Protein backbone atom coordinates (compact mmCIF):
# COMPACT_ATOMS: atom_id res chain seq x y z
CA UNK A 1 0.00 0.00 0.00
CA UNK A 2 1.32 3.41 -0.95
CA UNK A 3 -0.03 6.91 -0.57
CA UNK A 4 -0.22 9.23 -3.55
CA UNK A 5 0.17 13.00 -3.40
CA UNK A 6 -3.52 13.46 -3.96
CA UNK A 7 -4.41 11.06 -1.15
CA UNK A 8 -1.89 12.77 1.11
CA UNK A 9 -3.42 16.15 0.31
CA UNK A 10 -6.89 14.90 1.15
CA UNK A 11 -5.61 13.64 4.49
CA UNK A 12 -4.03 17.06 5.01
CA UNK A 13 -7.37 18.75 4.41
CA UNK A 14 -9.11 16.63 7.00
CA UNK A 15 -6.28 17.39 9.38
CA UNK A 16 -7.12 21.10 9.08
CA UNK A 17 -10.72 20.43 10.00
CA UNK A 18 -10.27 18.51 13.18
CA UNK A 19 -7.71 19.61 15.74
CA UNK A 20 -8.90 21.22 18.97
CA UNK A 21 -8.84 24.69 17.38
CA UNK A 22 -10.22 23.36 14.16
CA UNK A 23 -11.82 24.80 11.06
CA UNK A 24 -14.91 22.59 11.20
CA UNK A 25 -16.07 23.63 14.63
CA UNK A 26 -15.70 21.69 17.81
CA UNK A 27 -18.73 19.45 17.44
CA UNK A 28 -18.21 18.45 13.83
CA UNK A 29 -14.48 18.98 13.51
CA UNK A 30 -12.92 17.93 16.76
CA UNK A 31 -15.52 15.64 18.29
CA UNK A 32 -16.51 13.92 15.05
CA UNK A 33 -13.90 14.10 12.28
CA UNK A 34 -11.10 14.13 14.82
CA UNK A 35 -11.98 10.97 16.71
CA UNK A 36 -9.85 8.01 15.57
CA UNK A 37 -12.95 5.87 15.08
CA UNK A 38 -14.23 8.31 12.46
CA UNK A 39 -10.70 8.98 11.24
CA UNK A 40 -10.39 5.26 10.55
CA UNK A 41 -13.48 5.38 8.38
CA UNK A 42 -12.26 8.40 6.44
CA UNK A 43 -8.69 7.15 6.02
CA UNK A 44 -10.07 3.77 4.97
CA UNK A 45 -12.17 5.45 2.30
CA UNK A 46 -9.31 7.64 1.07
CA UNK A 47 -6.74 4.84 0.98
CA UNK A 48 -9.19 2.27 -0.34
CA UNK A 49 -9.08 -0.27 2.49
CA UNK A 50 -12.08 0.34 4.68
CA UNK A 51 -11.66 -2.67 6.94
CA UNK A 52 -8.03 -1.92 7.71
CA UNK A 53 -8.78 1.74 8.29
CA UNK A 54 -11.57 1.00 10.74
CA UNK A 55 -9.47 -1.61 12.53
CA UNK A 56 -6.67 0.91 13.05
CA UNK A 57 -9.14 3.57 14.12
CA UNK A 58 -10.74 1.26 16.68
CA UNK A 59 -7.37 0.32 18.13
CA UNK A 60 -6.32 3.95 18.51
CA UNK A 61 -9.69 5.14 19.70
CA UNK A 62 -9.51 2.79 22.66
CA UNK A 63 -6.41 4.63 23.90
CA UNK A 64 -7.97 8.08 23.64
CA UNK A 65 -11.54 7.32 24.56
CA UNK A 66 -11.83 10.01 27.19
CA UNK A 67 -9.61 12.79 26.01
CA UNK A 68 -10.33 15.98 27.91
CA UNK A 69 -8.70 19.20 26.82
CA UNK A 70 -9.25 21.47 29.79
CA UNK A 71 -8.51 25.13 29.23
CA UNK A 72 -7.18 24.59 25.75
CA UNK A 73 -4.42 22.18 26.64
CA UNK A 74 -4.04 18.88 24.86
CA UNK A 75 -1.79 16.03 25.80
CA UNK A 76 -2.38 14.21 22.52
CA UNK A 77 -3.42 15.75 19.24
CA UNK A 78 -6.29 14.05 17.41
CA UNK A 79 -5.35 15.53 14.05
CA UNK A 80 -2.00 13.79 14.17
CA UNK A 81 -3.42 10.56 15.55
CA UNK A 82 -6.20 10.30 13.02
CA UNK A 83 -4.70 11.69 9.85
CA UNK A 84 -1.01 10.95 10.26
CA UNK A 85 -1.08 8.00 12.64
CA UNK A 86 -3.81 5.93 11.02
CA UNK A 87 -2.52 6.20 7.43
CA UNK A 88 1.02 5.34 8.50
CA UNK A 89 -0.20 2.44 10.61
CA UNK A 90 -2.22 1.18 7.67
CA UNK A 91 0.80 1.28 5.40
CA UNK A 92 2.96 -0.47 7.98
CA UNK A 93 0.43 -3.20 8.65
CA UNK A 94 -0.24 -3.80 4.96
CA UNK A 95 3.47 -3.89 4.13
CA UNK A 96 4.22 -6.36 6.92
CA UNK A 97 1.34 -8.53 5.75
CA UNK A 98 -0.27 -8.56 9.19
CA UNK A 99 -3.88 -9.62 9.66
CA UNK A 100 -5.69 -6.27 9.98
CA UNK A 101 -7.97 -7.62 12.73
CA UNK A 102 -5.23 -9.35 14.71
CA UNK A 103 -3.55 -8.31 17.92
CA UNK A 104 -0.17 -7.36 16.42
CA UNK A 105 -1.81 -5.00 13.97
CA UNK A 106 -3.69 -3.33 16.81
CA UNK A 107 -0.54 -2.99 18.88
CA UNK A 108 1.39 -1.53 15.98
CA UNK A 109 -1.44 0.94 15.40
CA UNK A 110 -1.50 1.96 19.06
CA UNK A 111 2.22 2.60 19.25
CA UNK A 112 2.21 4.68 16.06
CA UNK A 113 -0.80 6.56 17.40
CA UNK A 114 0.80 7.35 20.71
CA UNK A 115 3.97 8.46 19.00
CA UNK A 116 2.43 10.87 16.49
CA UNK A 117 -0.29 11.95 18.93
CA UNK A 118 2.19 13.31 21.39
CA UNK A 119 4.52 14.70 18.74
CA UNK A 120 1.45 16.30 17.21
CA UNK A 121 0.81 18.43 20.30
CA UNK A 122 3.64 20.58 19.00
CA UNK A 123 1.55 21.23 15.90
CA UNK A 124 -1.45 22.08 18.04
CA UNK A 125 0.38 24.71 20.02
CA UNK A 126 1.98 26.04 16.85
CA UNK A 127 -1.44 26.71 15.31
CA UNK A 128 -2.71 28.35 18.51
CA UNK A 129 0.37 30.53 18.67
CA UNK A 130 0.19 31.58 15.03
CA UNK A 131 -3.45 32.58 15.61
CA UNK A 132 -2.08 35.35 17.81
CA UNK A 133 -1.11 37.10 14.58
CA UNK A 134 -4.67 37.10 13.24
CA UNK A 135 -5.94 38.12 16.63
CA UNK A 136 -3.63 41.13 16.57
CA UNK A 137 -5.31 42.06 13.27
CA UNK A 138 -8.60 41.66 15.05
CA UNK A 139 -7.71 43.99 17.89
CA UNK A 140 -6.76 46.64 15.38
CA UNK A 141 -10.08 46.16 13.59
CA UNK A 142 -12.01 46.49 16.82
CA UNK A 143 -10.05 49.59 17.67
CA UNK A 144 -10.72 51.11 14.27
CA UNK A 145 -14.35 50.10 14.33
CA UNK A 146 -14.04 47.81 11.31
CA UNK A 147 -16.25 45.21 12.84
CA UNK A 148 -17.03 43.45 9.57
CA UNK A 149 -13.46 42.27 9.37
CA UNK A 150 -13.89 40.23 12.54
CA UNK A 151 -15.59 37.49 10.58
CA UNK A 152 -12.48 37.00 8.50
CA UNK A 153 -10.32 37.05 11.60
CA UNK A 154 -12.30 34.24 13.15
CA UNK A 155 -13.15 32.13 10.13
CA UNK A 156 -10.66 33.08 7.41
CA UNK A 157 -7.10 33.80 8.48
CA UNK A 158 -6.74 30.76 10.75
CA UNK A 159 -6.77 28.63 7.60
CA UNK A 160 -3.25 29.89 7.07
CA UNK A 161 -2.18 28.56 10.48
CA UNK A 162 -3.65 25.24 9.53
CA UNK A 163 -2.20 25.23 6.05
CA UNK A 164 1.23 25.50 7.59
CA UNK A 165 0.86 23.35 10.69
CA UNK A 166 -1.85 20.88 9.70
CA UNK A 167 -1.96 20.52 5.96
CA UNK A 168 1.72 20.48 5.08
CA UNK A 169 3.01 18.24 7.90
CA UNK A 170 0.21 15.75 7.30
CA UNK A 171 0.76 15.68 3.57
CA UNK A 172 4.50 15.22 3.78
CA UNK A 173 4.54 12.76 6.63
CA UNK A 174 1.93 10.53 5.06
CA UNK A 175 3.46 10.75 1.60
CA UNK A 176 6.89 9.77 2.76
CA UNK A 177 5.17 7.10 4.71
CA UNK A 178 6.89 4.33 6.57
CA UNK A 179 10.27 5.98 5.99
CA UNK A 180 9.18 8.92 8.05
CA UNK A 181 7.92 6.87 10.96
CA UNK A 182 10.99 4.70 10.99
CA UNK A 183 13.17 7.77 10.84
CA UNK A 184 11.18 9.28 13.69
CA UNK A 185 11.42 6.18 15.80
CA UNK A 186 15.13 5.98 15.26
CA UNK A 187 15.68 9.65 15.83
CA UNK A 188 13.50 9.68 18.95
CA UNK A 189 13.76 6.39 20.80
CA UNK A 190 11.24 5.97 23.58
CA UNK A 191 13.93 5.61 26.18
CA UNK A 192 15.74 8.70 24.95
CA UNK A 193 15.58 12.00 26.76
CA UNK A 194 13.56 13.71 24.03
CA UNK A 195 10.63 11.30 24.02
CA UNK A 196 10.68 10.86 27.77
CA UNK A 197 10.48 14.61 28.16
CA UNK A 198 7.77 14.89 25.53
CA UNK A 199 5.59 12.33 27.23
CA UNK A 200 6.24 13.82 30.66
CA UNK A 201 5.25 17.24 29.37
CA UNK A 202 2.24 15.72 27.65
CA UNK A 203 1.10 14.33 30.95
CA UNK A 204 1.55 17.68 32.67
CA UNK A 205 0.05 20.02 30.11
CA UNK A 206 -3.53 19.51 31.24
CA UNK A 207 -2.44 20.99 34.56
CA UNK A 208 -2.04 24.28 32.74
CA UNK A 209 -5.55 23.93 31.41
CA UNK A 210 -6.94 23.20 34.84
CA UNK A 211 -4.98 26.15 36.16
CA UNK A 212 -6.65 28.34 33.55
CA UNK A 213 -10.03 27.09 34.69
CA UNK A 214 -9.04 27.72 38.29
CA UNK A 215 -8.07 31.26 37.44
CA UNK A 216 -11.64 31.69 36.26
CA UNK A 217 -13.17 30.16 39.36
CA UNK A 218 -10.96 31.04 42.29
CA UNK A 219 -11.65 34.39 43.86
CA UNK A 220 -10.29 33.99 47.36
CA UNK A 221 -8.15 31.38 49.00
CA UNK A 222 -11.06 29.44 50.45
CA UNK A 223 -12.33 28.80 46.94
CA UNK A 224 -9.55 26.26 46.62
CA UNK A 225 -11.28 24.09 49.18
CA UNK A 226 -14.16 22.77 47.08
CA UNK A 227 -11.65 22.23 44.30
CA UNK A 228 -9.49 20.13 46.59
CA UNK A 229 -12.50 18.28 47.95
CA UNK A 230 -13.55 17.41 44.41
CA UNK A 231 -10.02 16.23 43.78
CA UNK A 232 -10.01 14.17 46.96
CA UNK A 233 -13.33 12.54 46.18
CA UNK A 234 -12.06 11.43 42.80
CA UNK A 235 -8.44 10.68 43.68
CA UNK A 236 -8.77 9.11 47.13
CA UNK A 237 -12.23 7.60 46.91
CA UNK A 238 -12.37 6.85 43.22
CA UNK A 239 -15.68 8.62 42.70
CA UNK A 240 -16.37 9.19 39.03
CA UNK A 241 -17.29 12.56 37.62
CA UNK A 242 -21.03 12.13 37.67
CA UNK A 243 -20.88 11.08 41.32
CA UNK A 244 -18.63 14.03 42.14
CA UNK A 245 -21.18 16.27 40.47
CA UNK A 246 -24.00 14.77 42.51
CA UNK A 247 -22.12 15.38 45.74
CA UNK A 248 -21.18 18.88 44.69
CA UNK A 249 -24.84 19.70 44.11
CA UNK A 250 -25.57 19.15 47.77
CA UNK A 251 -22.90 21.64 48.75
CA UNK A 252 -24.20 23.99 46.09
CA UNK A 253 -27.70 23.89 47.55
CA UNK A 254 -26.31 24.56 51.00
CA UNK A 255 -24.21 27.45 49.76
CA UNK A 256 -27.17 28.86 47.92
CA UNK A 257 -29.23 28.84 51.07
CA UNK A 258 -26.42 30.25 53.15
CA UNK A 259 -26.01 33.12 50.72
CA UNK A 260 -29.74 33.70 50.68
CA UNK A 261 -29.86 33.86 54.45
CA UNK A 262 -27.09 36.40 54.65
CA UNK A 263 -27.95 39.84 55.76
CA UNK A 264 -31.49 38.68 56.29
CA UNK A 265 -32.81 41.90 54.87
CA UNK A 266 -33.54 41.06 51.28
CA UNK A 267 -35.72 38.01 51.26
CA UNK A 268 -35.77 35.46 48.49
CA UNK A 269 -37.35 37.30 45.59
CA UNK A 270 -39.97 34.61 45.22
CA UNK A 271 -41.18 35.13 48.78
CA UNK A 272 -41.56 38.84 49.24
CA UNK A 273 -41.68 39.74 52.90
CA UNK A 274 -43.58 42.68 54.21
CA UNK A 275 -41.00 44.40 56.39
CA UNK A 276 -38.37 44.34 53.66
CA UNK A 277 -40.14 46.98 51.68
CA UNK A 278 -40.22 49.22 54.68
CA UNK A 279 -36.49 48.90 55.04
CA UNK A 280 -36.00 49.70 51.41
CA UNK A 281 -37.95 52.86 51.81
CA UNK A 282 -35.90 53.91 54.79
CA UNK A 283 -32.86 54.36 52.66
Amino acid at each position, binding site marked *: MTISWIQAAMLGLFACLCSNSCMAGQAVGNYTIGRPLVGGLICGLILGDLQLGIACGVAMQLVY*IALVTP*GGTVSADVRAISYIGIPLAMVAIASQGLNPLGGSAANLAKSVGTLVGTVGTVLYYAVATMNLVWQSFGWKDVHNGKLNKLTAVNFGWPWISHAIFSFLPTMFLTYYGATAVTALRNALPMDGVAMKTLFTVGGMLPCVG*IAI*LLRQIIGRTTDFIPFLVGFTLAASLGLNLVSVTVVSLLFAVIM*YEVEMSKGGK*QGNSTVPEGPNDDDEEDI
Partner: protein
Amino acid sequence: MENTNNSKKLDKRTLLKSFHRWFWGALTCFSQEHMQTFGYMASMLPILKKLYPNHKDQVKAIKAYTAFFNTNPMLGTVIVGITASMEQARANGKEIDGETINDMRAGLMGPIAGIGDSLIDGTLIPILLGISLGMSTGGSPLGAIFYIVAWVLIAYFGQRFLYFRGYHFGDQAVSFLVGKQGAAIRRAIGIVGSMVVGGVLASWVNVTTSLKLYGANGKVFLNLQNKLDSIYPGLLTVIVTLFCWWLMTKKHVSAIWTMLLLVVISLIGVLVGFFNPGLSY
Protein backbone atom coordinates in the same frame (compact mmCIF):
# COMPACT_ATOMS: atom_id res chain seq x y z
CA MET B 1 -40.62 46.87 31.18
CA GLU B 2 -41.60 50.44 30.28
CA ASN B 3 -42.26 51.15 26.61
CA THR B 4 -42.26 47.51 25.61
CA ASN B 5 -44.25 48.61 22.58
CA ASN B 6 -41.45 50.24 20.70
CA SER B 7 -38.90 47.72 21.99
CA LYS B 8 -36.39 46.05 19.73
CA LYS B 9 -36.70 42.32 19.50
CA LEU B 10 -34.23 39.94 17.88
CA ASP B 11 -35.81 37.83 15.17
CA LYS B 12 -35.19 34.13 14.89
CA ARG B 13 -32.99 34.50 11.81
CA THR B 14 -30.52 36.74 13.59
CA LEU B 15 -30.42 34.46 16.59
CA LEU B 16 -29.82 31.42 14.42
CA LYS B 17 -27.04 33.24 12.60
CA SER B 18 -25.41 34.07 15.91
CA PHE B 19 -25.83 30.51 17.10
CA HIS B 20 -24.31 29.03 13.95
CA ARG B 21 -21.31 31.28 14.23
CA TRP B 22 -20.73 29.97 17.71
CA PHE B 23 -21.39 26.38 16.72
CA TRP B 24 -18.82 26.48 13.93
CA GLY B 25 -16.48 29.14 15.16
CA ALA B 26 -16.08 29.04 18.95
CA LEU B 27 -12.55 27.71 18.65
CA THR B 28 -11.41 28.51 15.11
CA CYS B 29 -9.26 31.47 16.06
CA PHE B 30 -8.19 30.00 19.40
CA SER B 31 -4.99 31.14 21.08
CA GLN B 32 -3.63 30.48 24.53
CA GLU B 33 -3.95 34.16 25.29
CA HIS B 34 -7.46 35.11 24.26
CA MET B 35 -8.94 31.64 23.82
CA GLN B 36 -12.54 31.94 22.65
CA THR B 37 -12.75 35.73 22.70
CA PHE B 38 -12.81 36.10 18.91
CA GLY B 39 -15.26 33.26 18.49
CA TYR B 40 -17.52 35.07 20.92
CA MET B 41 -17.20 38.42 19.19
CA ALA B 42 -17.95 36.82 15.84
CA SER B 43 -21.09 35.29 17.31
CA MET B 44 -22.31 38.53 18.81
CA LEU B 45 -21.75 40.52 15.65
CA PRO B 46 -25.10 39.66 14.01
CA ILE B 47 -26.87 40.52 17.24
CA LEU B 48 -25.18 43.87 17.61
CA LYS B 49 -25.78 44.79 14.00
CA LYS B 50 -29.45 44.07 14.37
CA LEU B 51 -29.90 45.89 17.64
CA TYR B 52 -27.79 48.96 16.92
CA PRO B 53 -28.33 50.30 13.41
CA ASN B 54 -25.89 53.05 14.29
CA HIS B 55 -22.30 51.95 13.61
CA LYS B 56 -20.93 53.89 16.57
CA ASP B 57 -23.25 52.05 18.93
CA GLN B 58 -22.09 48.76 17.49
CA VAL B 59 -18.48 49.61 18.13
CA LYS B 60 -19.35 50.66 21.66
CA ALA B 61 -21.30 47.49 22.28
CA ILE B 62 -18.63 45.10 21.03
CA LYS B 63 -16.28 46.36 23.73
CA ALA B 64 -18.01 44.21 26.31
CA TYR B 65 -17.01 41.14 24.39
CA THR B 66 -13.32 41.91 24.07
CA ALA B 67 -12.71 40.52 27.55
CA PHE B 68 -11.11 37.13 27.89
CA PHE B 69 -13.53 34.28 27.42
CA ASN B 70 -13.18 30.53 27.66
CA THR B 71 -15.55 27.80 28.59
CA ASN B 72 -16.76 24.44 27.42
CA PRO B 73 -18.07 25.36 23.97
CA MET B 74 -20.97 22.89 24.15
CA LEU B 75 -22.63 23.90 27.40
CA GLY B 76 -21.21 27.39 27.03
CA THR B 77 -23.70 28.01 24.23
CA VAL B 78 -26.18 28.93 26.91
CA ILE B 79 -24.00 31.88 27.90
CA VAL B 80 -24.02 33.21 24.35
CA GLY B 81 -27.80 32.96 24.33
CA ILE B 82 -28.02 34.82 27.60
CA THR B 83 -25.85 37.67 26.36
CA ALA B 84 -27.98 37.94 23.23
CA SER B 85 -30.93 38.55 25.46
CA MET B 86 -29.10 40.90 27.79
CA GLU B 87 -27.84 42.89 24.84
CA GLN B 88 -31.42 43.17 23.61
CA ALA B 89 -32.51 44.41 27.02
CA ARG B 90 -29.65 46.91 27.03
CA ALA B 91 -30.64 48.11 23.56
CA ASN B 92 -34.14 48.64 24.96
CA GLY B 93 -32.82 50.92 27.61
CA LYS B 94 -32.81 48.60 30.58
CA GLU B 95 -30.15 49.42 33.13
CA ILE B 96 -27.67 46.85 32.02
CA ASP B 97 -24.16 47.85 31.20
CA GLY B 98 -21.18 46.07 29.73
CA GLU B 99 -19.90 45.41 33.20
CA THR B 100 -23.03 43.51 34.20
CA ILE B 101 -22.76 41.43 31.06
CA ASN B 102 -19.14 40.69 31.74
CA ASP B 103 -19.78 39.82 35.36
CA MET B 104 -22.22 37.20 34.21
CA ARG B 105 -19.85 35.83 31.59
CA ALA B 106 -16.96 35.70 34.03
CA GLY B 107 -19.05 34.14 36.76
CA LEU B 108 -20.43 31.38 34.59
CA MET B 109 -17.62 30.49 32.21
CA GLY B 110 -15.43 28.73 34.78
CA PRO B 111 -18.03 26.50 36.37
CA ILE B 112 -19.59 25.66 33.02
CA ALA B 113 -16.15 24.75 31.71
CA GLY B 114 -15.69 22.31 34.56
CA ILE B 115 -19.13 20.81 34.33
CA GLY B 116 -19.08 20.67 30.55
CA ASP B 117 -15.63 19.12 30.25
CA SER B 118 -16.70 16.49 32.74
CA LEU B 119 -20.10 15.74 31.25
CA ILE B 120 -19.33 16.09 27.54
CA ASP B 121 -15.67 15.13 27.09
CA GLY B 122 -15.48 12.89 30.11
CA THR B 123 -18.83 11.13 30.09
CA LEU B 124 -21.05 11.59 27.05
CA ILE B 125 -18.42 11.22 24.32
CA PRO B 126 -16.79 8.16 25.95
CA ILE B 127 -20.20 6.49 26.27
CA LEU B 128 -21.12 7.13 22.65
CA LEU B 129 -17.69 6.00 21.52
CA GLY B 130 -17.89 2.94 23.73
CA ILE B 131 -21.16 1.88 22.16
CA SER B 132 -19.97 2.64 18.67
CA LEU B 133 -16.64 0.86 19.11
CA GLY B 134 -18.60 -2.27 19.85
CA MET B 135 -20.38 -1.99 16.52
CA SER B 136 -17.16 -1.52 14.62
CA THR B 137 -15.38 -4.57 15.92
CA GLY B 138 -14.26 -6.63 12.97
CA GLY B 139 -13.68 -3.61 10.78
CA SER B 140 -17.32 -2.75 10.12
CA PRO B 141 -18.01 0.93 9.36
CA LEU B 142 -21.33 0.67 11.19
CA GLY B 143 -20.04 1.99 14.51
CA ALA B 144 -18.31 4.98 12.99
CA ILE B 145 -21.42 5.91 11.00
CA PHE B 146 -23.65 5.46 14.03
CA TYR B 147 -21.33 7.69 16.06
CA ILE B 148 -21.30 10.43 13.43
CA VAL B 149 -25.06 10.52 13.09
CA ALA B 150 -25.89 10.19 16.77
CA TRP B 151 -23.35 12.69 18.00
CA VAL B 152 -23.88 15.37 15.36
CA LEU B 153 -27.62 15.31 15.98
CA ILE B 154 -27.16 15.48 19.74
CA ALA B 155 -24.56 18.21 19.48
CA TYR B 156 -26.40 20.39 17.00
CA PHE B 157 -29.85 20.22 18.50
CA GLY B 158 -28.54 20.14 22.03
CA GLN B 159 -26.54 23.32 21.55
CA ARG B 160 -29.33 24.97 19.64
CA PHE B 161 -31.69 24.18 22.47
CA LEU B 162 -29.24 25.63 24.97
CA TYR B 163 -28.79 28.79 22.94
CA PHE B 164 -32.50 29.50 22.86
CA ARG B 165 -32.93 28.45 26.48
CA GLY B 166 -30.27 31.00 27.32
CA TYR B 167 -31.96 33.63 25.21
CA HIS B 168 -35.34 33.14 26.85
CA PHE B 169 -33.77 32.82 30.24
CA GLY B 170 -31.91 36.03 29.63
CA ASP B 171 -34.56 38.29 31.04
CA GLN B 172 -34.42 36.48 34.30
CA ALA B 173 -30.68 36.41 33.96
CA VAL B 174 -30.77 40.08 34.77
CA SER B 175 -32.52 39.64 38.06
CA PHE B 176 -30.30 36.60 38.36
CA LEU B 177 -27.38 38.96 38.39
CA VAL B 178 -28.44 41.84 40.49
CA GLY B 179 -29.20 41.32 44.13
CA LYS B 180 -28.88 38.56 46.53
CA GLN B 181 -30.33 35.66 44.62
CA GLY B 182 -27.94 36.27 41.76
CA ALA B 183 -24.98 36.13 44.08
CA ALA B 184 -26.36 32.99 45.69
CA ILE B 185 -26.90 31.22 42.39
CA ARG B 186 -23.46 32.14 41.14
CA ARG B 187 -21.94 30.94 44.38
CA ALA B 188 -23.78 27.65 44.07
CA ILE B 189 -22.72 27.16 40.46
CA GLY B 190 -19.19 28.06 41.50
CA ILE B 191 -19.13 25.31 44.10
CA VAL B 192 -20.23 22.73 41.58
CA GLY B 193 -17.74 24.06 39.08
CA SER B 194 -14.75 23.90 41.36
CA MET B 195 -15.57 20.48 42.75
CA VAL B 196 -16.02 19.15 39.25
CA VAL B 197 -12.80 20.73 38.04
CA GLY B 198 -11.09 19.02 40.97
CA GLY B 199 -12.70 15.78 39.88
CA VAL B 200 -11.61 16.30 36.27
CA LEU B 201 -8.06 16.88 37.40
CA ALA B 202 -8.00 13.74 39.51
CA SER B 203 -9.71 11.63 36.88
CA TRP B 204 -7.81 12.53 33.77
CA VAL B 205 -4.47 13.91 34.86
CA ASN B 206 -1.89 11.97 36.74
CA VAL B 207 1.57 13.39 37.31
CA THR B 208 3.77 10.77 38.90
CA THR B 209 7.40 10.38 39.78
CA SER B 210 9.41 7.31 38.94
CA LEU B 211 12.01 7.96 41.60
CA LYS B 212 13.02 4.82 43.41
CA LEU B 213 16.00 4.32 45.69
CA TYR B 214 17.64 0.93 45.86
CA GLY B 215 19.44 -0.58 48.84
CA ALA B 216 22.71 -2.45 48.83
CA ASN B 217 20.87 -5.71 48.23
CA GLY B 218 19.20 -4.31 45.13
CA LYS B 219 15.79 -4.08 46.78
CA VAL B 220 13.78 -0.89 46.50
CA PHE B 221 13.73 0.86 49.82
CA LEU B 222 12.12 4.07 48.73
CA ASN B 223 9.36 4.26 46.17
CA LEU B 224 8.69 7.98 46.26
CA GLN B 225 5.37 7.75 44.45
CA ASN B 226 4.00 5.30 47.02
CA LYS B 227 5.19 7.55 49.80
CA LEU B 228 3.51 10.55 48.19
CA ASP B 229 0.31 8.60 47.68
CA SER B 230 0.23 7.75 51.35
CA ILE B 231 0.44 11.45 52.20
CA TYR B 232 -2.22 12.55 49.78
CA PRO B 233 -3.20 10.64 46.69
CA GLY B 234 -2.46 12.71 43.62
CA LEU B 235 -0.19 15.11 45.47
CA LEU B 236 2.15 15.81 42.56
CA THR B 237 -0.77 16.46 40.22
CA VAL B 238 -2.17 19.02 42.62
CA ILE B 239 1.20 20.62 43.18
CA VAL B 240 1.94 21.04 39.48
CA THR B 241 -1.53 22.47 38.92
CA LEU B 242 -1.32 24.92 41.79
CA PHE B 243 2.17 25.89 40.65
CA CYS B 244 0.82 26.72 37.18
CA TRP B 245 -2.05 28.61 38.72
CA TRP B 246 0.35 30.57 40.87
CA LEU B 247 2.60 31.40 37.94
CA MET B 248 -0.25 32.60 35.80
CA THR B 249 -2.30 34.36 38.45
CA LYS B 250 0.22 35.72 40.88
CA LYS B 251 3.28 36.08 38.64
CA HIS B 252 1.31 36.94 35.50
CA VAL B 253 3.21 34.46 33.40
CA SER B 254 1.36 33.66 30.19
CA ALA B 255 0.05 30.20 29.43
CA ILE B 256 2.65 29.65 26.72
CA TRP B 257 5.55 30.51 29.01
CA THR B 258 4.09 28.36 31.72
CA MET B 259 4.04 25.47 29.31
CA LEU B 260 7.60 26.10 28.25
CA LEU B 261 8.60 26.09 31.88
CA LEU B 262 6.96 22.70 32.24
CA VAL B 263 9.09 21.50 29.33
CA VAL B 264 12.20 22.64 31.16
CA ILE B 265 11.05 21.05 34.41
CA SER B 266 10.23 17.81 32.62
CA LEU B 267 13.60 17.77 30.90
CA ILE B 268 15.44 18.24 34.17
CA GLY B 269 13.18 15.71 35.84
CA VAL B 270 13.86 13.16 33.14
CA LEU B 271 17.61 13.79 33.36
CA VAL B 272 17.76 13.31 37.13
CA GLY B 273 15.48 10.29 36.98
CA PHE B 274 12.52 11.92 38.67
CA PHE B 275 10.25 11.51 35.68
CA ASN B 276 10.03 8.55 33.38
CA PRO B 277 6.86 7.82 31.47
CA GLY B 278 8.14 4.27 31.00
CA LEU B 279 6.72 3.75 27.54
CA SER B 280 8.15 1.70 24.73
CA TYR B 281 7.21 1.04 21.13
